[in-house]
């Protein structure tokens, strides 16, 4: 459900920053399902499987790096074009 909202955000909005936020929503939806699966998989010793939680940790780290790079690209683009709308950035369109 959260993934769908994020996906709709990527499809519908025309502002790059909002699109980045919607990407974060989708990553977090995946994280939520991973944590739920780790809660399903309970070992005989009574602890949940922590492999999925380690995976979520990696996803959060990579997402942080991705947001930093994405926002730096947005800042560079804004300096060049003074806009954050994807419809105004059509330099590669022929």
């Amino acid at each position, binding site marked *: 459900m*959260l993934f*769908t909202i994020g996906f*709709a955000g990527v*499809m519908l909005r025309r502002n790059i*920053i909002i699109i980045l936020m919607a990407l974060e929503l989708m990553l977090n939806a995946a994280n939520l399902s991973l944590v739920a699966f780790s809660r399903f998989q309970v070992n005989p010793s009574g602890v949940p499987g922590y492999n999925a*939680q380690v995976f*979520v940790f990696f996803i959060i780290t990579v997402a942080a790096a991705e947001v930093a790079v994405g926002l730096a690209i947005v800042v560079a683009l804004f300096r060049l074009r003074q806009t954050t709308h994807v419809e105004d950035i059509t330099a590669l369109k022929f």
Partner: protein
Amino acid sequence: MSSFFFWVFALMMLIFGAAVVINRNPVASALSLVVSFLGLAGLFLSLDAYFIGIIQILVYAGAIMVLFLFIIMLLDLRAEKLRKINWIATAGGIAVALALLFQILSVIGRFPAAKQTFPPLPKPASDDVHQIGLLLFNAYNLPFQVVGVVILVATIGVIVLSRRETR
């Protein structure tokens, strides 16, 4: 009681997640993203993933949202003017999103384990930070190092991207 908290956090997450997409003002959108992530962190805590829940609050609601708000202030974005909406693209986006939602729901409906509730966990011998740390440094040591390199590359890349040309 636990079910009540689940519904509170899940509704908070979904409503504010929709508000992120619907709001016209980028600042309001970023703040609703914070609330949505807080609800998600509550869900993580109720799933007995305390470490992930705390990391979620620290990294997302703390660091990443400060980054978003800082960029929004830096670029001085106003609420978008209501420009001419491309109705075909909008309808297409909503249709694709609804198709995806229908598909996800049908997959979950076929998944038999989705209907059972979680049995309560027995008290674990050691806390989950201990367990995750052991796993991270024993079984997942190489990916951990690779993630460190990824962050280094991202840092250098951001510096290169945001440097002004001085020629």
